[in-house]
């Protein structure tokens, strides 16, 4: 089990390099941009996959957490704090070295939060909100939990649309690049940004984050806590009787998946140089759920592969204007014919059932 997991992860590393080589061979380096974005969306999907597939708690509000991560980080790194320079919170942040001075396009003095601190705030905000939402909401089950998380997602979407601070319908643009590592010797700095010069580095960074994220989740699933999560999925009563604090574990995994979404949101926002309210829309949340289902609820690898693959196709515009419709259709077909995910599909019994009827 341990070795199989490591082999699979090594395979994913090789696949990453292979994808890069493919884009070089095909002389299509622009594919790297969508592959980078798809990897970040993949991070959301595997986080949601553990929540839904293993712990059995649905969330139709994960775009909300993604948006919290992206928006908080974008707002803090772009909104000018100079007018508040004299106030104590800003002085405190400055004292801690978390602010960066700059100039806007008109040459005026600009003071913003550094990307590191902003990302930290964004992820912390998502975790705290997940905690506050999760305590009451996770008492619900099934359809009721789905509706409550749907409500949460809608609220976040509407707040973002209505707040001038978050740019209303325009969202936030001009988000600065995020310098992860300064220049070292002959190596240039590692910057999360959509600039062409950073394209290859960002591709490897995003896939690296995805691989590490998958590694952590695979470890978790195989651990004592993972067993507890899977047990409460099936029977909360029996899990409780075995001493599993079901409320606490559900809350922890909910927060964990919110953190995954927020990390992806924050990094992708710096990569894209901005974020818009459509990232928080219900349709996005439904898409994440659909992608987890397509990959197979209890199959993290399936969710990862199908999630990244379909997102990449979607970002390339393969589905055209029917994008959302395609994901809706995929969801229906998966539920009908492959409830355990596309990768678990056995074609022969399926075809027999489709054309001859009767049980497979």
């Amino acid at each position, binding site marked *: 089990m341990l070795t199989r997991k490591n082999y699979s992860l090594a395979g994913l590393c090789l696949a990453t390099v292979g994808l890069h080589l493919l884009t070089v061979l095909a002389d299509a380096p622009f594919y790297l941009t969508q592959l980078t974005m798809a990897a970040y969306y993949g991070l959301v999907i595997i986080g949601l996959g553990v929540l839904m597939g293993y712990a059995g708690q649905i969330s139709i509000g994960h775009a909300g957490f993604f948006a919290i991560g992206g928006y908080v980080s974008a707002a803090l790194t772009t909104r000018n704090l100079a007018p508040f320079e004299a106030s104590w919170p800003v002085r405190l942040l400055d004292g801690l070295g978390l602010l960066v001075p700059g100039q806007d396009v008109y040459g005026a003095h600009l003071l913003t939060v550094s990307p590191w601190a902003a990302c930290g705030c964004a992820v912390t905000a998502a975790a705290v909100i997940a905690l506050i939402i999760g305590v009451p909401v996770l008492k619900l089950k099934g359809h009721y939990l789905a509706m409550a998380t749907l409500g949460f997602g809608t609220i976040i979407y509407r707040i973002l649309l209505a707040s001038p601070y978050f740019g209303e319908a325009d969202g936030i643009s001009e988000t600065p690049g995020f310098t992860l590592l300064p220049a070292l010797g002959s190596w240039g700095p590692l910057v999360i940004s959509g600039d062409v010069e950073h394209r290859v580095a960002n591709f490897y960074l995003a896939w690296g984050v995805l691989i590490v994220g998958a590694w952590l989740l695979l470890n978790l699933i195989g651990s004592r806590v993972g067993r507890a999560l899977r047990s409460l999925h099936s029977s909360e009563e029996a899990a409780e009787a075995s*001493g599993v604090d079901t409320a606490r574990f559900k809350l922890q995994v909910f927060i964990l998946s919110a953190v995954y979404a927020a990390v992806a949101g924050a990094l992708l926002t710096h990569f894209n140089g901005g974020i818009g309210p459509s990232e928080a829309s219900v349709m996005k949340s439904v898409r994440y759920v659909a992608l987890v289902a397509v990959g197979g609820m209890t199959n993290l690898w399936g969710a990862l592969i199908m999630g990244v693959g379909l997102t990449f196709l979607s970002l390339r515009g393969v589905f055209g204007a029917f994008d959302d419709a395609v994901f809706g259709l995929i969801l229906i077909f998966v539920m009908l014919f492959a409830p355990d995910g596309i990768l678990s599909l056995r074609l022969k019994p399926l075809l027999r059932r489709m054309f001859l009827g009767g049980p497979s």
Partner: protein
Amino acid sequence: MSGVQDLNTPMLALQGVHKRFGGLHAVNDVSFQVAAGSIKAVIGPNGAGKTTLFNLIAGNLPVSAGTIVFQGQEIQGKKTHQVARLGMARTFQNIKLFHGMTALECVMVGRHVQSRSGFFAGMFNLPSTWKEERAIRARSLELLELMQIADLAGVEATSLAFGQQRAVEMARALASEPKLLLLDEPAAGLNIYETAEVARLICAIRDMGVTVLLVEHDMSLVMDISDEIVVLSFGSKLAEDTPANIQKDAEVIKIYLGEDDAG
């Protein structure tokens, strides 16, 4: 916490326990004690409140009134997982195994209270968790061997035969190394050979030092292995005595066999 259990302190003591569901008085002023190291049975006709009583003891339901003392500590109002942590394990009348998990994994969940690796230790696969994980696996396999189903360890638990599922559930309960084991109709749906096997097993569990409280319909099982029997009828305690005396009790015969036959 002192590890020494005073022999005079009962393992479990119920005092004036009531449970009302709206107008229905499901459990009415029930008091009894379970001596450490004994096998005690709760019997009664359908709807007598036996399973409700179990749910009250295990913390699945809150009591309406009364106290439940487990190893000298009041546990009414505690959550089920807290009660489990104190050393109480149970099985269910309608078996509740975990879907998508092997028999071994189900039993390993039972080791939850005996292990401590947390969220982050699990995520980072810290070396400290490896030894614990090996110990969990080894003890769980041991228990499957005790149930004589070690060869089925890798089989998905919910796909096993009925009797084998019962055995997995029993192993899961024992995996927490409980002081008190609650068995909710352990022989329901079993044939007479399997029932005899369950009887032998329950006695073996008692001999391991585990106190057993069971609810059961099968009179032969109850009369054979119990040290004491509590009879419930319409939520109230009708009698409490040794099996031999219960069999002679006119009241008990009346509720079980009907008034005419008893006369």
